[in-house]
């Protein structure tokens, strides 16, 4: 840890994104192979379907009949499956890694946001929440997010993923530039 390069914030800079990314590519290969061999189904890295299952599980505790009848929950199957556990794993993996290199930091408002919109936690929370709603409606409509389309779809050269990623990023860049335009 001590030999790692320190940036100006005094926080270790981690690994090269090229190396960490390439290892994720390797993880994707191993993971597709293992799920095919052990589960009989080729599973690719993805994240957004888990949010549907989480919503279904929560809703189920209030109104199980409604969830059982809803066409979308029936289609996506409300259960704690491979991808659901993978999402839980992401939390622990990030926790372990950040504790190991001491980059774990409790942060209420991200620096870039704070510089532009101030340090109000409530303001950040409201925008995050609303952004989350819109993003997930979009991800479910497009049937994937930057993991499912961006990583897994691109690796398979899926037609839909090339266009989806272009829209994700193109529209994202447009909105971000509007939000952070100077003199506003």
């Amino acid at each position, binding site marked *: 840890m001590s030999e790692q390069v320190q940036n100006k914030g005094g926080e270790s800079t981690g690994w090269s994104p090229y190396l960490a990314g390439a290892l994720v590519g390797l993880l994707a290969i191993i993971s597709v192979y293992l799920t095919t061999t052990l589960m009989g189904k080729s599973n690719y890295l993805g994240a957004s379907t888990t949010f549907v299952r989480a919503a279904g599980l929560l809703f189920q505790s209030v109104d199980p009949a409604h969830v059982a009848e809803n066409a979308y929950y029936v289609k996506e199957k409300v259960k704690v499956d491979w991808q659901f556990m993978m999402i839980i794993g992401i939390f622990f993996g990030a926790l372990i890694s950040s504790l190991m290199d001491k980059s774990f930091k409790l942060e209420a408002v991200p620096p870039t946001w704070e510089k532009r919109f101030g340090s109000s936690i409530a303001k950040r929370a409201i925008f995050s929440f609303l952004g989350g709603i819109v993003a997930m409606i979009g991800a479910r409509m497009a049937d994937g997010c930057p993991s499912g389309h961006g990583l897994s779809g691109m*690796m398979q050269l899926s037609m839909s993923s090339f266009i989806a990623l272009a829209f994700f990023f193109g529209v994202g860049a447009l909105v971000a530039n509007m939000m952070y335009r100077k003199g506003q």
Partner: protein
Amino acid sequence: MSTEQILGLVTGIFFGFLLQKGRVLRYDKQVGAMLFKDMTIFKFMLSAIIVGMFGILAMHDMGLIKLSHKAMNVGAILVGGSLFGIGWAVMGFCPGTSVGAIGEGRWHAVFGAIGMIVGAGVYAELFPFFKSTVLSWADFGKIGLPEVLGINHWVIAVIFTIITLIMFRWFEKKGI
């Protein structure tokens, strides 16, 4: 836990570990890419895509795995992709990275994650409406770029890699 669940958990731990090491779980990195100031997430994603692509295409050619394309439904991809872009810029996280961000202490990502669970619930309720509107415009099904272009997948993979390496060189030259 079942084999399936253990396999998922272990895969996720490695995935989260690497996402954190690549420093892509940060709001500042995600929005930084959208503002063309810090292309870390692109370096990370494109490196993963290139390595994964060669392995997956090879395993598919050998008959070891099945591909799982997502449908090229025009309305779904254009409208859904745009909505995701808007939400991604405002929230500053995508679904997978929001969970990882919470893991490394950036707890404000919790609000985005809750919003996404609500959004998934809203989508489930509106699904019949979307099915009869946006999703019914035109659907080309589960197709790959090689079939659409009529070009061998290895040729596309090599071209894709060359373009990516040129982009990497440009990122490094610009220092972004």
